[in-house]
């Protein structure tokens, strides 16, 4: 495989058998020059206009109708989180039908998808393109069981890849918590309710065939809330269950009591405050990690105290954010993915809680994605390096165990991107000379916040000045690293087989930012 070095010094292939040619990453805005051309999949009518019912008796029959055959590309969404049973149900049916060599292009793979490792081993799946890889699938790919390297894409990058045809979905299998017989569907009601269907909406628009799989078939027309209208759906298949509701609809994450996490959150909040971005109309994104929620809690208190009303929150939405919306601390919530069950009701009842498809959220090459309007984003990381590069993909053992998600998208779009993480986890330092895998380039990261202090990217001289003015515990990143290593020592590096790439990490613009190798 011919390799080249990209602009941040990472070796990436220029051509990959089974995928084709790639360009090396060359800066976060290098392809935003208007030269980018998108080709959109053409959708033509295949449904009998006289039909008033798209329900097909079995999944197998629906698949047969699509003409799915060896080598095609199929997609799934991961809105059912760790409770999803649809991917396995569909894949088992496909295996029974003897279809092989598929490209599996789900929006992400969760802990519910360990079975994918078996489909890889049996040859049902030959290529994988996803945002996240964990558990058995991560181990299988990292040990080289997938002949063609997997492609890891950010949420915005996947939306872009679908629109440009890099991911040409032949059949999208969309778990539909509620659906009518013509294929109008949503994720808000039914026993498998999961919230927003932001990823599924995009797949539905661009796939050649769309099969809605539901365990809650309702009388036509579904109302009042339709996430994906019937115009995109070819077939509807009714099944007994989409998965385990207890894992689909998890409870809202609680505010942490862990003093270390609270310390980190306090430092992050102090930095946000110092940045002077928490002003009327501000926009904000946090994840649902414990530290992120603690930061959100501090932001909430501050906004209450100062009487600040923000513009909007965005992203994967957890219960904490909906409570801030209800309280009137923000004008609107843009929701591409619910993180817990408590947000589902809000989306149904609160008109200011807006379901948003993933291209709207983060596609770098549309006419304006929402991440570009973000003021502050707080993100977690597995580890970071002296160049502020962030790894959210490979663990300390070098094995794939994370997800690109909206990390690089929001880092690029936001005015202030803060990475929060403890200085070490289980004795292994979090700040290293060079992260194993770059997902988000350091040139889009503004600060690394740990319990030991705050390292501001030297590119942000303005933020450094504000931080000094506010008396923040500012540290240079090398100092933080050295201090941590006094406690942890320096771990031996993981050994990789650099002749065998197992995964390619795409930056959101489609260029390659890094390569993951087989572990020895």
């Amino acid at each position, binding site marked *: 495989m011919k390799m080249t070095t990209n602009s941040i010094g990472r070796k990436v292939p220029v051509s990959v058998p089974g995928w084709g040619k790639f360009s090396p990453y060359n800066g976060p805005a290098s392809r935003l020059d208007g030269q980018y051309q998108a080709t959109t999949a053409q959708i033509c009518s295949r449904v009998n206009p006289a039909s008033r019912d798209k329900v097909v008796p079995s999944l197998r029959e629906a698949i047969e109708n699509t003409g799915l055959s060896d080598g095609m590309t199929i997609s799934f969404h991961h809105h059912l989180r760790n409770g999803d049973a649809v991917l396995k149900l569909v894949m088992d049916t496909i295996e029974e039908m003897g279809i092989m060599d598929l490209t599996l292009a789900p929006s992400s793979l969760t802990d519910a998808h360990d079975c994918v490792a078996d489909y890889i081993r049996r040859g049902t799946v030959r290529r994988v393109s996803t945002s996240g890889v964990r558990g058995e699938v991560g181990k299988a790919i990292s040990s080289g069981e997938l002949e063609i390297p997997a492609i890891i894409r950010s949420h915005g990058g996947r939306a872009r890849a679908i629109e440009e045809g890099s991911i040409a979905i032949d059949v999208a299998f969309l778990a539909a918590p509620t659906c009518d017989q013509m294929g109008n569907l949503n994720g808000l009601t039914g026993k498998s309710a999961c919230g927003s269907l932001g990823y599924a909406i995009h797949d539905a628009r661009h796939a050649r065939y769309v099969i809605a799989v539901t365990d809650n078939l309702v009388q036509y027309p579904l109302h009042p809330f339709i996430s994906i209208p019937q115009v995109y759906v070819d077939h509807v298949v009714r099944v007994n269950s989409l998965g385990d509701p207890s894992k689909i609809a998890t409870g809202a994450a609680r505010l942490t009591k862990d*003093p270390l996490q609270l*310390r980190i959150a306090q430092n992050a909040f102090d930095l946000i405050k110092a940045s002077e971005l928490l002003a009327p109309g501000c926009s904000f994104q946090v994840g649902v990690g414990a530290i992120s929620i603690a930061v959100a809690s501090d932001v909430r208190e501050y906004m209450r105290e100062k009487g600040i009303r923000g513009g909007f929150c965005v992203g994967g939405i957890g219960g904490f954010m909906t409570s801030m919306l209800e309280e009137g601390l923000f004008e609107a919530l843009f929701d591409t993915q619910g993180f817990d069950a408590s947000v589902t009701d809000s989306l149904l009842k609160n008109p200011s809680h807006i379901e948003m498809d993933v291209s709207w959220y983060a596609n770098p090459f549309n006419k304006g994605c929402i991440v570009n309007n973000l003021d502050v984003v707080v993100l977690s990381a597995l580890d970071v390096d002296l160049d502020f590069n962030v790894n959210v993909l490979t663990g300390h053992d070098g094995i794939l165990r994370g997800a690109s998600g909206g990390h690089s998208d929001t880092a690029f779009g936001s005015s202030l991107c803060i990475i929060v993480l403890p200085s070490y986890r289980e004795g292994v330092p979090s700040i290293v000379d060079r992260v194993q895998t770059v997902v988000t380039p350091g040139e889009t990261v503004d600060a690394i916040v740990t319990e030991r202090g705050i390292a501001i990217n030297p590119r942000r001289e303005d933020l450094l000045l504000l931080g000094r003015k506010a008396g923040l515990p500012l540290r240079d990143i090398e100092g933080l690293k050295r201090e941590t290593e006094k406690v942890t020592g320096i771990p031996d590096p993981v050994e990789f087989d650099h002749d065998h790439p197992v995964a390619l990490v795409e930056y959101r613009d489609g260029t390659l930012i890094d390569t993951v190798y087989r572990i020895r």
Partner: protein
Amino acid sequence: MSNPMRSMLYIPGNNPGMIQQCSFYGADSILLDMEDAIALSEKDAARNLVSHALRSLDFSDVYMTVRINGADTEFFEKDLEKIVPSKPDAIRLPKTQGMEDVKHADELITLLERENGILEGTISLHAMLETAKGIVNAFSIATASPRVRALTLGGQDLAADMGIRRTKEGTEILYARSAVVMAAKAAGIMAFDTVYIDISDLEGLLQESIMVAGLGFTGKAAIHPSQVPVIHQAYRPDEKDLRKAIRVVRAAREAESKGIGVYTVDGRMVDGPVVTQAHRVVELARISGMDVEGADLK
């Protein structure tokens, strides 16, 4: 002037994770506990861990105290032998009943300081009063050795010793609190109040902290990091007091430079104790993150 110690956070001496991170919890001082928090079977492990941590970790400018086991236990001497060479800022002596207890510990520590090449008197003693006898002897304990730099009240054990029940109002230990503060002030040393057990009741903690700060305690023990900012809040001067304190400090400095002995601020005579108090208010304001501009802190 050393930083006021508003909070003293208990950290179990056998918990390496918490020990490693304790200096990030925001407490002014840390108490690594080898006594009540540690099961008998864990005493050796805690002693080794605390000693090693003190020698190898950087706790920044956090004041480090170790609570050893009492002189009535088999662990007392072993604890001192291991901990003194690790040079904590202070050693807390539990169940101090009278001046003899202090003198006994003082002699052993002095010996161990000599043996280990540590300047005599480097390590302070904090005497913990948690029996009726200890409370009655508070002043003689406080003055038994120059090494004693603080009296600390142990409310739970005191209640057990007296056969009374602790209440949130704390009326039952009001005398003990007052006695400890009075003795400490008379001896010119610090006084730490006992712990607030209900870690979920931060409002109750705040009320109690305001009360003990009002009694004159220089600080209060915390058993969970979440209690630390609440205790600090109780010691945060109000804005009006701070502005007045700054005026006093500035007037004192001006008077000193001009050689004036008697002067007034806001129409009132200012003397030495008022200036001392003003300095303390300014210092508390500074560590509370308040704007102390104009106080010309050096």
